[in-house]
């Protein structure tokens, strides 16, 4: 069914073709250090990033998510286990899996347009088709007026959108996003969620999105992978079947969203507690954040009223 959807997108000539990829991670471990001082960051981790779906991975900070991303991208190789894209093992970085990094990794010495055109030019494809595509994407991410600006001249949200465009022009099979909206203020963050969800719904490209923000995770995800603390592995997988397009208000009004949130939070809390007894710094942070979140005020701006 998903394939049908993807091929109907391809048939539509106004829209660029979208590739679909599925990544299978099979009992992957990654440890750092030498001889007797190795530390397992990822241990016996298995999961699938299903094609044409938005898979979100959530876990306490420092649990090894970024390591997993480096493995998926091919910047590093697993110590054991295999990672495959569409059945083919991953041996290095490639344009079929593009990473959008935590803080902007746009090249500051290139204009927005040149940043977006980086991929095509790197492959010697600076042709009319690529230029049209860049124009199309600039419009899509609302940066046509900022085409010739340098990244430092853009706001945080604009930089993230430019980076999305820079990745999308390469038409990757899988887009990998490592906490891309971290550091944005709450307002821009919610705008970026809506924006990014819209882009995804239009293309239905396989997306893998890593975050520590439970609201972000639930708003965006088709499937939610909840990670254990280090060494990282998947603790649970939740299907989030809230219909798209979603609204930010769904996060608070939708019963299913609240159910998932409670479930996810209790699992995450358990994980954090486990490593808390082990004295992990990340766990302490997480528990602090968790206790804040459960006493959060409603979004309509009113103070909570005692019954």
């Amino acid at each position, binding site marked *: 069914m998903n394939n049908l959807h993807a091929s109907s997108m391809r048939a539509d000539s106004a829209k660029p073709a979208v590739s679909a990829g599925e990544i299978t991670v099979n009992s992957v471990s990654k440890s750092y250090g030498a001889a007797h001082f190795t530390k397992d960051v990822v241990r016996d981790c298995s999961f699938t990033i299903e094609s044409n779906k938005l898979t979100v991975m959530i876990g306490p900070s420092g649990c090894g998510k970024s390591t997993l991303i480096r493995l998926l*991208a091919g*910047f590093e190789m697993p110590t054991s286990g295999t990672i495959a894209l569409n059945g083919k093992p991953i041996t290095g*970085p*490639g*344009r079929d*899996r*593009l*990473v959008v*990094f935590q803080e902007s*990794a746009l*090249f*500051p*010495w*290139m204009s927005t347009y040149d940043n977006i055109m*980086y*991929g095509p030019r*790197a*492959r010697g494809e600076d042709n009319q088709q690529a230029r049209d595509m860049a124009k199309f994407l600039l419009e899509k991410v609302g940066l046509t007026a900022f085409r010739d*600006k*340098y*990244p*430092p*001249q853009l706001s945080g949200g604009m930089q993230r959108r430019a980076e999305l465009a*820079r990745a999308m022009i*390469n038409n990757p099979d899988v887009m990998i996003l490592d906490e891309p909206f971290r550091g944005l203020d709450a307002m821009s963050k919610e705008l970026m969620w809506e924006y990014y969800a819209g882009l995804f719904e239009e293309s239905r490209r396989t997306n893998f999105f890593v975050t520590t923000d439970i609201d972000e995770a639930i708003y965006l995800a088709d499937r939610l992978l909840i990670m254990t603390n280090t060494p990282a592995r998947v603790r649970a997988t939740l299907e989030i079947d809230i219909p798209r397009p979603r609204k930010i208000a769904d996060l608070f009004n939708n019963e299913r969203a609240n159910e998932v949130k409670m479930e996810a939070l209790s699992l995450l809390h358990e994980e954090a507690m486990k490593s808390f007894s082990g004295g992990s710094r990340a766990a302490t942070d997480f528990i602090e954040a968790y206790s804040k979140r459960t006493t959060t005020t409603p979004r309509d701006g009113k103070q909570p009223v005692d019954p």
Partner: protein
Amino acid sequence: MNTTTRWRKKLLSKASLRALISIIVFLVLWELGSRSKQWLGFSLPWIGQVPAPTAVLNVWEGLLGNLGYWQSWLFSLGRVVGGFLAAMVIGIPLGLLMAVNKRFHDIVFPSFEVLRPIPPLAWVPASIIFWPTTELSIAFVIFLGAFFTVVINVVSGARSIDVRYFQSAQSMGSSQWDIFRRIVLPATMPSIVVGSAVGMGITWEVVVAAEMISGGGAAGSEGGGLGFFIWNSYIGGAYEQIVVGMISIGIAGYACSTAIRSLGGFFTPWLKKR
């Protein structure tokens, strides 16, 4: 028209006014000091020996029509530009190579680090012995002044490039050469500019000593460069000329630094436009 108004605004700004006041106060204090040889009843052990600014200006005015004086400018400027360009041409590729290739770095860096702390002035005698002509000896010392600074800036600049830039570029299908040309080079450019600006300053510090010791070059006693001009004035007892030479070097150095800065701005447009 727009440019003239901008310039007028710049000249009449508070910052310019402060600069003007600063220079005037400095000159007045200097003038008073060298005339009276005493301030508030205390005799001044040093400033009294320095010729007064009016006397210096007088001598300077006489020198403006002197071909030898302008020749000194030309000689020094030529040596500085030559040594500096040589330092750039050799230093930038060397620095980049050291940053990009670890094996090359491991081989070259130790020798480089041993030679780097040696002050350019300490090279003067060796330089006189090694090079066949005086002119080459001078140019070599000037070259050394800028060279090490340029190299060390390029290496540290290129080595501190964010690894995510490489990862992004690699993911998008860049070849090694493409990464070098479109990532390493522009990412290092700000460090190259800083290294050149600092290196240019050092060349002017070095040119004087090099010219003094090497004896002025082939063009005769009057054409040995600004450094030689100062040394020669000292030998001849023309103290006002010493000060003229010093200020001339100050002006020349300032002009060169300004030129480098604006050239640097041209090569790093993304840093300026905010």
